[in-house]
């Protein structure tokens, strides 16, 4: 590289400056640069020693503090293993099946998977379901319900349901499988029942000149179609389905809450209750917040109050869920929901 530099013609301005003549060093004046450098070096050494002793003292104080904290923790719960924890599964928003290819979705498949994974974890002694949902489709609600029942049967771990703002219909169905239900006094709950709603677009389509025709193998094949009015026969058939699903719901609540079917049916006319009303009626066990639910779960799990909390969610899934929710703000989810006109059988409260 040096040779190349020498071979190219360089302009005079870039010519190497002549080497400065090596002038003999002037005798060091007393109190010159050397003296000040020594002073600075000495001050540096002093400040280093001071900083070192300060940091050592601070570290020692921190260590002593953490030791005290550990001792108090140990004395407060001698039985509690260091690793024992309470698992938390969040059930937020309307419950639906969810896409199996999107592991970060909050569908019933993913929630059931989280319940299975937490119940299989030997360090998790109890599970809290943090519920804030108006319910959802019958199939997906029952998927979560059966995941809880199976986990309880296999592992004998206690489950505690905690209600947030709303835990109605399907949300309550899921909670009925739990050993304890904790709600805020103002939580909206209840709405025990089933709904199957169909939008009749016939009049609108007629106005814009659209006519739909269905060629079917049986007379009920297009039952629930929004393109025409429902027949009395279809209505009867659907009512039968609704009644059957309703019986399943009532049976689940009666079993979970240890009530008679008659008493449950008296409460299950679809009405909603506040948390306090639900407590009086025996649909809820306790009023309180998430911390109360965690404490109760800790005590049921034998690890005492204020337990360590494990939230079963991988960091990647959390990130993807966050990105997905940000993209939903662009309106893609709203458009998809608006286009979803198909009827479905639901344990859901539509007041929200």
């Amino acid at each position, binding site marked *: 590289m040096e040779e190349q530099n020498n071979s190219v013609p360089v302009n005079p301005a870039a*010519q190497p400056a002549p080497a400065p003549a090596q002038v003999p060093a002037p005798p060091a004046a007393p109190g010159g640069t050397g003296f000040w450098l020594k002073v600075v070096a000495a001050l540096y050494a002093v400040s280093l020693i001071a*900083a070192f002793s300060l940091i050592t003292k601070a570290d020692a104080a921190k260590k002593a503090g953490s030791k005290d904290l550990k001792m108090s923790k140990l004395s407060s719960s001698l039985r509690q293993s260091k690793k024992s924890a309470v698992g938390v599964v969040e059930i937020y928003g309307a419950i639906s099946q969810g896409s199996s290819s999107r592991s970060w979705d909050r569908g019933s498949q993913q929630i059931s998977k989280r319940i299975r994974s937490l119940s299989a974890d030997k360090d998790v002694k109890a599970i809290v379901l943090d519920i804030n949902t108006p319910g959802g489709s019958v199939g997906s609600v029952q998927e979560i319900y059966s995941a809880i029942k199976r986990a309880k049967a296999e592992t004998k771990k206690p489950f505690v349901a905690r209600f947030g703002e709303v835990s109605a219909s399907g949300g309550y169905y899921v909670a009925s499988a739990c050993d304890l239900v904790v709600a805020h006094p103002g939580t909206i709950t209840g709405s025990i029942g089933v709904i199957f709603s169909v939008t009749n677009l016939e009049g609108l389509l007629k106005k814009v000149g659209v006519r739909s025709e269905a060629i079917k193998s049986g007379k009920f094949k297009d039952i629930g179609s929004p393109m025409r009015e429902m027949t009395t026969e279809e209505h009867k058939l659907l009512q039968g389905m609704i009644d059957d699903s309703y019986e399943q719901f009532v049976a689940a609540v009666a079993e979970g809450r240890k009530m008679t079917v008659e008493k449950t049916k008296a409460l299950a006319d679809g009405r909603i209750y506040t948390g306090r009303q639900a407590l009086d009626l025996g649909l809820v066990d306790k009023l309180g917040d998430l911390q109360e639910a965690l404490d109760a779960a800790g005590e049921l799990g034998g690890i005492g109050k204020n337990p360590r909390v494990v939230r079963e969610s991988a960091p990647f899934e959390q990130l993807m869920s966050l990105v997905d929710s940000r993209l939903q703000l662009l309106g893609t989810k709203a458009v998809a929901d608006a286009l979803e006109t198909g009827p479905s059988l639901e344990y859901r409260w539509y007041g929200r």
Partner: protein
Amino acid sequence: MNPINTLEALIDRPETITGPERPAGLGRAGLLGYFSGTLGLFMFLRMQGAVPPGVFSFLSAYLFVLAANFFFAGVIHLFMDLTCAAPSGANGRGRAARLFLAFGCTDYLLALLVPLGFLSGVKVLNGFLWFGLCFLAVIYARVRLIRRLYTVSVNKALLSVWLPYGGIFLLFFAGLVYGMIWLFWLIM
């Protein structure tokens, strides 16, 4: 040669750094400069509780500083060579090593961070501000040094000092953009 004497010679007679021979004791003074600069920075950050304690923590920081400055000196010398900036004094052979050691001498300024850490502890200016001032002082010293070692303008010297930092930032930014595009592709 005592590092203090070497520093004294460099301050009083800066032209010695451009001489045909490397100034006596520059290697020791440069490495000691890196050591005391890193120690100063490390103690400052420890006082702020921003770095983990321990000898290994300091040694890894020291090795990182040495590696980064070795890379910086190499990149700056390459930049000067590519832009035909002539080295002052004798030929440019070994000038990158000399630049690396001379940069070590500028790192002595970071030793100031120890007393400044105490000042920030008693709320005389923010710690980040003190660090920024020291960093600027080091950059200024390095620009002066480059102007001694190569016959270049202040702007070019400034550009060459910031160039490696800019390159690293650009790489980081490109990685970030690529990561975001990959994430969007993944979810769409």
